[in-house]
């Protein structure tokens, strides 16, 4: 079941089109990574989901309904742009404020969440004096307080240390797997998204470039053999003459990337060694999400 459904969503500010015909479906329990450069329209899409910006055209649906969006938003949590905290209040007071707004009855949830994000010992320090990482953690705790069914997170790991990034990744994965929470997340750390997300949506200049599942991404990230030998030029000649393929690239003059015979490792290795070459490296590698994203957005920008 799709719990988030965006159909031909557009947003104009005056004559400027910030989001242009963007569509997206996210199934319950899935984690969708929204990927795009700065100014691509990611935050505007998230703001439309949150009810902070009205779409110029197109439709939004939550939990299979496109009416009563505000009612659905009560079951959701948003963390947009920089975390929204009252700088004159401390962490607990900020949590208390959100507890009142969301109508969370259980006061203990505040301690639970502060403990969870590692802010249990900040005491009466005002949020205005927090580091970016601490503010980020507080923002996440505030988003999690009401146990949402859908979370929309804009750059949630921005400013966190590597340990914090891993903790948040594991936490989000756990929420999706164990509590079936659906998550839309944007981040500039694509390696993080590739480890976390089940779906990806690439956007550039407000336009949708591609929506794809993890499986589709894996299939599209072309794999290759990275090969090093004692004589790279002769290896290239052997590949062309004996294997009869030109689908290879010589990288930095000391490595060959072979994009053919990917299901026949024995034939490739045997052909090379049978021709008197010594293999010093032979591994199967693939393009990363980053490579794939850059190839898509780079092509678009050209």
């Amino acid at each position: 079941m799709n719990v988030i459904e965006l159909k031909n969503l557009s947003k104009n500010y005056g004559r400027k089109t910030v989001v242009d015909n963007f569509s997206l479906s996210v199934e319950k329990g899935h984690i969708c990574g929204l990927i795009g450069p700065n100014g691509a329209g990611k935050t505007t899409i998230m703001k439309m989901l949150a009810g902070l910006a009205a779409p110029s055209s197109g439709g939004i649906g939550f939990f299979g309904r496109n009416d009563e969006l505000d009612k659905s938003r009560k079951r959701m949590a948003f963390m947009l742009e920089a975390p929204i905290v009252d700088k004159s209040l401390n962490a607990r007071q900020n949590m208390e404020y959100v507890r009142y707004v969301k109508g969370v009855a259980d006061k203990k949830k505040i301690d639970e969440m502060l403990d969870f994000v590692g802010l249990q010992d900040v005491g009466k320090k005002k949020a205005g004096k927090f580091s970016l990482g601490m503010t980020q953690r507080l923002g996440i705790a505030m988003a999690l307080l009401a146990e949402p069914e859908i979370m929309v997170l804009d750059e949630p790991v921005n400013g966190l240390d590597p340990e914090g990034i891993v903790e948040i990744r594991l936490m989000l994965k756990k929420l999706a797997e164990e509590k079936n929470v659906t998550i839309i997340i944007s981040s500039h750390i694509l390696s993080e998204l590739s480890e976390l997300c089940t779906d990806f949506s690439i956007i550039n200049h407000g336009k949708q470039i591609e929506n794809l599942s993890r499986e589709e991404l894996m299939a599209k990230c072309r794999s290759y053999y990275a090969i090093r030998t004692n004589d790279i030029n002769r290896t290239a000649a052997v590949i062309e003459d004996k294997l009869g393929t030109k689908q290879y690239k010589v990288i930095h003059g000391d490595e060959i990337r072979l994009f053919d015979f990917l299901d026949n490792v024995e034939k490739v290795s045997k052909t090379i060694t049978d021709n008197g070459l010594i293999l010093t490296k032979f591994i199967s590698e693939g393009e990363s999400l980053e490579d794939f994203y850059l190839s898509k957005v780079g092509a678009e920008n050209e």
Partner: protein
Amino acid sequence: MSKLIKAEFYRSVRSGIFFMIFCVFGLLPTVMPFASLADMEQKNLYQFLIFYSQSGGILITGYFGIIVSAMISNLYYNRTYYYEIMDGANTHHIIFSKLIVYNVFSTAVMIIPPVIAYSIVGNKYGIGEMNELWLTVLLGIIIILNISCINVFISMLIRHILAAPILIYSLSMIPLFVYLMIIETSEMTGVNKFITKALSCSPTIQITEFVKADYSTGFVVKVIGSFVVFFVGLYTLTYISYKKKNFK
């Protein structure tokens, strides 16, 4: 709506220094007459109320407006108001929650204390030359609530921690300054009459006039009319600005 009222109440009380200044400035108009009229031998309630409405009026409309606006604008400065919208709160509920909280505060510091204090003054020293005591009290309450509502609406419309207080202060003090200047120094020509009539619809002027006003000349209608017109007009503008959903 109770969730939003509780949240706003919690946030404003926790705003620390702002809340303290709010209480002090709110209580000043009540306290000041006691200090100023302490040495007067023949004092009565009328004199206290005149003092309250004239010198206190400037405090209530000007400085108090700045503080209320700063307290509300903090919500916009920190963007914490996003939480209300992201929770799908009804726009009417959002507006009414702010109105209720700040009118409760205004009532607690600017209506209840003077009513209690001046009841004691009236009992002890007599009412003085007042014909319509309860009407005067009622009009005073309406004017203070009108000022309080205007402060809330403008803060919600401007949503800027500096611009909103400055605008509120200007809207309070400029009409009062022009009105007093015309009354004190100019002849009541046609234009001046029109300007003073128009300005007397402002609650800023009404707060300085309500004790000694001649109720037979439509002052009551002006006070109630001003409250209704400002409330309906500013409520509509605030509602539309929220419904547009272009929050920066």
